[in-house]
């Protein structure tokens, strides 16, 4: 029963994160997690690596806010966000979002919400290393559309 975030250079271990998420919790009947990884092809560019920048202070605050919103909106036992910064390479892990709840519906929805809001609100910027040189990644329209579906009417 914990809600926490980390922004870090180090890699994370999904097994350890899962163990932590449900430690001592006899009511967590459902766990959903998502891992984002560096992939080779992005918008037709052959990517060899990624450098990730953040805004120290604000990034952590936004992630905490997103977590607090999810906690209010769904019946969650625990939730966790880990996001890496610095130099990453192909197949490296970038982000972990994990949610536990009594029933699966809350965990599935909250995990999607956390990722959609993280992608459109949290101050992180990706710069790709490609065979054609370094390229700042532009915002993706589909992410904004995905985030909008969570707006409460």
């Amino acid at each position, binding site marked *: 029963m914990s809600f926490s975030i980390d922004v870090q250079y180090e890699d994370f271990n999904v097994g350890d994160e899962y163990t932590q998420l449900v430690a001592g919790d006899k009511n967590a009947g459902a766990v959903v997690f998502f891992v984002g990884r560096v992939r080779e092809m992005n918008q037709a560019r052959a990517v060899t690596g990624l450098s990730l920048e953040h*805004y120290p202070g604000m990034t952590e605050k936004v992630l905490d806010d997103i977590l607090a919103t999810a906690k209010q909106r769904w019946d969650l036992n625990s939730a966790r966000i880990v996001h890496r910064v610095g130099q990453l390479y192909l197949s490296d892990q970038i982000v972990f979002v994990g949610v536990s709840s009594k029933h699966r519906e809350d965990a599935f929805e909250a995990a999607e919400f956390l990722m959609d809001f993280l992608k459109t609100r949290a101050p992180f*910027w990706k710069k790709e290393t490609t065979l054609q040189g370094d390229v700042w990644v532009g915002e993706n329209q589909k992410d904004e559309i995905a985030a909008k579906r969570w707006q409460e009417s």
Partner: protein
Amino acid sequence: MIRVLFLAQLREQVGTAEIQIPTADLDAVKTIAALKDYLVNKNPAWEPHLANSKLLVAINHEYARTEVAIKDGDEIAFFPPVTGG
């Protein structure tokens, strides 16, 4: 004094990560919009980058609109749309 930060691609475009605006100049930068004018006035080459309508602004780590008032001691950050995850 106000600290103004430029992040990610914008930092590379303007060629600096941070500038400080002295308290004596506070009257000229009462809002985000006025601050942009002040910065462009001092650095005409920044105009196309700061005029970018997609640019985001934060005051003291909170997203802010351009009409929001600035006060002494604030930390203002300009940055491009976010692309994490």
